[in-house]
């Protein structure tokens, strides 16, 4: 069943604040094997002009993906998540996320199209800090494969 293009532009209420913690950043940096001290040493981060340690640049996906669950679970949209693979991912940064940030994610459906029988859904997550200032936008393209196709990602 193809997704209804009239859902393009639908937006969801911003999430409850997520507090970015130093130790979570450290855990993520270790998991990607990145030893850049800007992620773990506040002094190294300050030397580069950041008020505190920053998060690796793909970390915002953790927040935007969790927030996108609203789209996946939207009964009116009717996305079959068992067939979904991550097709494309893009980030647009005003600045890196950093320790101490309390951010909210505002999710919206940026595009819906059909490509070779697959539904292609573009979900935008705007991440803003407590004062409402933009930090980063995470744009995910999810592909709901036609039945019996091989998995991707």
């Amino acid at each position, binding site marked *: 069943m193809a997704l209804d293009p009239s859902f393009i532009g639908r937006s969801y209420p911003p999430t409850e604040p997520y507090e970015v913690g130093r130790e979570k950043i450290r855990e993520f940096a270790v998991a990607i094997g990145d030893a850049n001290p800007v992620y773990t040493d506040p002094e190294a981060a300050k030397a580069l002009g950041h008020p505190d340690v920053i998060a*690796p640049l*793909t970390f915002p996906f953790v927040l935007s993906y969790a927030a996108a669950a609203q789209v996946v679970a939207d009964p009116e949209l009717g996305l079959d998540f068992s067939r979904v693979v991550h097709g494309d991912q893009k980030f647009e940064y005003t600045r890196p996320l950093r320790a101490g940030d309390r951010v909210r994610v505002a999710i919206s459906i940026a595009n819906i199209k059909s490509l070779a029988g697959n539904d292609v859904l573009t979900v935008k997550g705007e991440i803003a800090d407590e004062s409402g200032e933009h930090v980063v936008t995470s744009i995910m393209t999810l592909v709901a494969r036609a039945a019996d196709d091989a998995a991707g990602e």
Partner: protein
Amino acid sequence: MAVNFDEVEVGTELPAQSFPVTRATLVRYAGASGDFNPIHWNERFAHQVGLPDVIAHGMFTMAEALRVVTDWTGDPGAVVEYGVRFTKPVVVPDDDRGAVIEVTGTVAKLLEDRRVRVDLLATSAGQKVLGMSRAVVQLA
């Protein structure tokens, strides 16, 4: 030690890097990212959905590829935009060697305001695993 815009040109190559991935890497990344999709740790499940074996998280591969850029600039905050397409999975066998992601980067375009576009090429086992992999970077 920021990279100066005046010292790069179209075709400037960034230092290439290789990133090893084992099953342990994927378990650790699953925990840190909260992505517990069993295709990234359960071989039985991976086979059931038609995959040759357990595959790496696409977002893990995306993170590794960008290290070629952030190790070049020193400050990850220099990256203004970063996007990829997940074209082929990184297949990670259950042995001591796992897989390797090889990444090269080239300055593809000089932009306004002392920015450049870097195009990244990420391969594993000879297959291109990311497509349209591009970062816009603010240089000094």
